């Protein structure tokens, strides 16, 4: 018994190696989101251009859409604007979900949607505007429900408002073809897709 005890470290190490071996052949970035194949969570958030108008999940239905989480504060998102604008010109429907960073009212910070609108307009005029509309998530509630870990992230949503793909990081000419395949499938699939 005592003798066997001295082989425990070896056994533990061999078990670990098995995991490391199988881990070598899978992509750590490829993490399935718990939301895939689930409908978009319910929300009701203001449109950046007309803050009095509230956008809901129903507004995104009807056409295959890319829901792009972004913010002015995020350099990668800004770098992505150019390519997304090209996609819009090719006819891809892109809706922005604006990630508002937390402000602390105790320090006198305030969030002002009108200032944000002007800032966003400046930026998009300069870099290109890929967005059909921008949803402002001031309290980050939808962003939380979607399980967003950072920006930029993009969700591919089918005609019925079901999330079909979750992409972490920027969309660029290198990784677009993979998403495009699914996008075209969904478009051709018509409205009878689940």
């Amino acid at each position, binding site marked *: 018994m*005592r*003798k066997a*005890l*001295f*082989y425990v*470290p*070896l056994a533990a*190490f*061999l078990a*670990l*190696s098995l*995991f*490391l*071996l*199988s*881990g*070598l*052949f*899978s992509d*750590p*970035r490829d*993490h*399935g989101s*718990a939301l895939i194949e689930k409908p978009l969570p319910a929300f009701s958030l203001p449109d950046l251009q007309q803050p009095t108008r509230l956008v809901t999940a129903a507004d995104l239905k009807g056409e295959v859409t890319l829901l792009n989480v972004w913010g*002015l*504060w995020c*350099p990668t998102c800004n*770098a992505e604007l150019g390519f997304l604008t090209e996609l819009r010109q090719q006819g891809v429907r892109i809706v922005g979900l604006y990630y508002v*960073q*937390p*402000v*602390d009212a105790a*320090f006198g*910070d305030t969030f002002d949607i009108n200032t944000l609108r*002007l*800032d966003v307009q*400046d930026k998009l005029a300069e870099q290109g505007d890929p967005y059909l509309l921008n949803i402002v998530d001031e309290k980050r509630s939808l962003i939380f429900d979607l399980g967003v*870990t950072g920006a930029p992230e993009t969700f591919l949503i089918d005609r019925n408002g079901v999330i079909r793909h979750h992409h972490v990081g920027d969309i660029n000419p290198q990784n677009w073809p993979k998403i495009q395949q699914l996008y075209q499938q969904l478009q051709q699939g018509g409205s009878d897709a689940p």
Partner: protein
Amino acid sequence: MIAEVGHLALCFALALSLILALFPLYGSYKGAAGPVLLARPAAVLLFLLTAVSFAALCYAFWINDFTVAYVANNSNSLLPWYYRLTAVWGSHEGSMLLWVLMLSGWTAAVALLSNSLPLILQGRILGVLGFVNVGFYAFVLLMSNPFERTLPFFPVDGRDLNPLLQDFGMIIHPPLLYMGYVGFAVSFAFAIAALLGGRFDANWARWARPWTLAAWLFLTLGIMLGSWWAYNELGWGGWWFWDPVENASLMPWLVGTALLHSLAVTEKRGTFKSWTVLLAIAAFSLSLLGAFLVRSGVLVSVHAFATDPSRGLFLLAFLLVVVGGSLLLYGLRMHAVRSQARYQLFSREVLLWGNNVFLLTATLVVFLGTLYPLFHKELGLGSISIGEPFFNSIFQYLAIPFALLLGLAPWVRWKQQQWQPLLKPLSLWLVGALVLAVGVLSMYQTPAANLALLGLLLGAWVTMATIGEIQQKAAQLGGIPGLFKLQASHWGMVLGHLGFAMLVVGIAMTKTFSVEKDVRMKIGDSVELNGYTFMLSEVYALNGPNYGGQAAELEVFQHGEKVTHLHAEKRFYPVTRAVMTEAAVHARLSRDLYVALGEELSGPSWALRVYVKPYVRWIWLGAILMALGGLVSLSDKRYRRKAAVKAETGAKAHA
């Protein structure tokens, strides 16, 4: 041409490491002196050849030789010369070359400094080191050759060094860290040599101790610098992220710390033998595992090098041979070894055992937290991530018993200690610690600061108990002059423990009292934070050698008086198209003022992040103090004197 010289030198080095792995081990197996005597010159030559190879790569960077693929990918003609040289280890291939340079450096150091060891043992130690060397040289040459050419179509200019790495901290962080990782190979070689020979006496521990101390010292400084660098360069004011690669460096450190304490027991009392050997194997195995995790791409991390499954496969195979082989040897040999020493429940042995238990629990927590997402996914259970709250809460609970034991252990004798004589002095020091902790906290007027109170209490307890122990020693040795009789390693322990106290206080205070504010500011605007007024006085365009961007100047006032002037930058590196934050930091022992410049907004105005972080310096100063403790311990005369005595008796035994 020079690059080919470097490549060739590396090939010769691989051949030499093969000689080093085979002949001395064969010689010590057969008991023949000849092959063993080959070890020393082979080890030294191995280091010299690697140095030539490393110098060749440095030269290629120096002259902007973009026909070398690695140079073209990691440098640029506009890069200042000092960053061109540090770019040598800025990416995978070059950092592996640095790794083997250090490995051969440690091997040569062991060869030169182990004169006093019995010849057979020298052969075993150097042979095992040679074996480790073979693996890494083969990996460099076959899987990640830094001397590959881009000929005939070479780029006119290079792709530039990752801007994150263009910083002073980055110049010395990887070398120190690698010195630590690779240094544990020496402790490992001593352990394997002991397993091969079947001798685990106090001498073994005494020889292994200074090497382990040296490796631990480098690792401590390396981790400290990494944390300091992240704080200055990443612009979020954080100093530890529980990133998989940070964790990969923390695990060998925790086990190495446990090993240092366990070696003390084995040296002084001749017990804990199998335990110490296992820790020595584990410390190096975790260094190797770290290298695997960083370079194979099984985990997502900000540090991960470009991923390539064949590299990962090679490293995994190497890991299996080295770690699997040594653990098998451990199973075969170790069960026959019995410890003779007897000790009571309340003795220093048991308290040091407690130290090991807590350090290893911490290692296990980091290990599971780092690899659990991998296990989870490979078992088909989907992706999960484990974040800061998991690590922070468990470490917080582990710190309590650990610090309590740490204060107590130096007071307790080996073998057996009566608790009555300790009761009075220790309770006095405990009351002192309570008064100190509550006193410091009362200056902050926040009764709800549990974490800060806990940290201050633990820190004050460790400090008071350590001072008390010195005072007790002084009383025994006849006053303050008697303290000069204390061994250097005792002072090393004192410094290390005080460093730990400082670290705990720093972490708890920073976590509790840091305040931050995201603001939008125009020129002339000011913002108030924790009694400091930050006024934005100027923003102008930057014009660096290989970057542009903006710089902001801020004036800081407190009670109407100017405290300091801050200069924060946001750099844009056009070649790599990367944006970098150079935070402005004004450091004092009691607090840091920290400003990071963000995006330019319309107006014109700027987004800024402003922090006041109390005691954050203490975290790094604590780590430096620990490393200093290691250095002082290393200077202890007995590591040299007794080794010399043993050499004599060893020679007699041979005669």
